[in-house]
């Protein structure tokens, strides 16, 4: 019995001796700050997955934007570009860039998506009226996506999306001027403003569908690569 045990011990020691430098090399390659940041994001994502709210996960490793609920991916949208929009007053930067690894609450659309309910009153029906003959609008007609929109979170982060003129409404020079004035106002008034805007490039159709479909008061977590 002693023979095989000794052989096993020798083999284990040999494997350890061979494996240790490889592990140490891996450790050296891995950036602890990067790993710690990723873990901080994953821990927050886990908390969101255990909750009862819809949430967005911006995974910068993709980069992809996921709409999720209880750990299930509902929609996954490929991010084509990223930009930081930093508030400035007279060219002085007021931005705060530590935005990943924490939960952002209370996401609300700006401009908000309005829903009008049709009220059906059968007492108003006339002879020959058929309610099923009414053709309701398409989602694009019912909820036209603006040229540009934000999902704003409590605490000062906003995600900014552009739907493109083809899919959205309100593009053009006047819209751009209105955007500039709105941005200047938001940068000047701390109560109104965003500490940082993350400009997320999506396919125009994806951005427009997200505007129409994103649930109210979503939460957000950003995962670093």
């Amino acid at each position, binding site marked *: 019995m002693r023979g095989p045990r000794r052989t096993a011990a020798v083999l284990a020691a040999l494997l350890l001796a061979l494996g240790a430098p490889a592990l140490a090399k891996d450790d050296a390659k891995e950036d602890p700050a990067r790993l710690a940041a990723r873990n901080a994001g994953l821990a927050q994502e886990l908390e969101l997955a255990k909750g009862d709210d819809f949430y967005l996960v911006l995974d910068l490793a993709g980069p992809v934007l996921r709409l999720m609920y209880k750990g299930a991916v509902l929609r996954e949208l490929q991010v084509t570009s990223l930009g930081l929009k930093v508030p400035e007053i007279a060219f002085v930067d007021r931005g705060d860039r530590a935005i990943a690894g924490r939960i952002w609450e209370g996401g609300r659309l700006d401009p908000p998506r309005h829903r009008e309910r049709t009220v059906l009153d059968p007492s108003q029906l006339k002879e020959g009226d058929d309610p099923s003959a009414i*053709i309701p609008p398409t989602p694009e007609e019912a909820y036209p996506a603006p040229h540009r929109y934000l999902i704003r979170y409590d605490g000062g982060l906003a995600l900014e999306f552009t739907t493109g003129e083809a899919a959205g409404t309100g593009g053009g020079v006047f819209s751009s001027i209105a955007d500039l004035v709105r941005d200047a106002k938001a940068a*000047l008034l701390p109560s109104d403003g965003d500490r940082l805007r993350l400009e997320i490039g999506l396919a125009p159709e994806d951005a427009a569908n997200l505007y129409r479909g994103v649930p109210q008061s979503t939460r957000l977590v950003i995962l670093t690569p």
Partner: protein
Amino acid sequence: MNDGIPTVPRAYVPRRSAFAVRIAVPRVPRRRLWIVGGLVLLAVVVLLGTGYDTRAVAPSDIRAVVPEDAASAPVSKLRAENRKLTSYLDRLAPRGTYIVVDRTNNRLYLRDGDEVRVDAACSAGSGALLKDTDRDRQWVFDTPTGRFRVQKKIEDPVWKKPDWAFIEIGEPVPRDPNDRFEYGTLGEYALYLGDGYMIHGTLYERLLGRAVTHGCVRLGRDDLRKVYAAARVGTPVYIY
């Protein structure tokens, strides 16, 4: 003839008119002009430099809020933590096939992990409000949101029409329950989600992509066949 003085064509000679407007230009001291000019320039700088400055960033440029103890932990510990968190998240994710309904865009997705196997136009609840003034009742035709499960798979489903189906078209609610059954309107199959809600077929395929239902989710025949074949009792259905 004119002693070297250039002549001005008659048309260009300014004439005093009865309608001439006199503009009074106040004399501003030069020092005050400098101050006003400076203020205008400052206003322009402030206006141009106020707003949001866009900077293209790489994903790695975005910083995270990291707990202090994690920032100083060894890599091996951080890696173990990473594996643990990833494994927890994997356990929460649905396994195998699941259904997602986007009720605003009227789309249904049949997903299997990262893969979208069916992306179909559907019809979700119209959101209309129906009032029964006679008996002081009302119904809101919304498709509910959240997580559901397929409770039953039904072939050739028969619709037992609820009260609102009669009230909506101004007909009296029948006393005989047999008068409530309607055959063929729900298509070939139905996936029952509970509380009266189903994913089923429709006679009105031209309305797919529009919110027209009373809360159920309608699918076209071909897509319904695929979804019905893939779904099992217990398959999760997520509606947002």
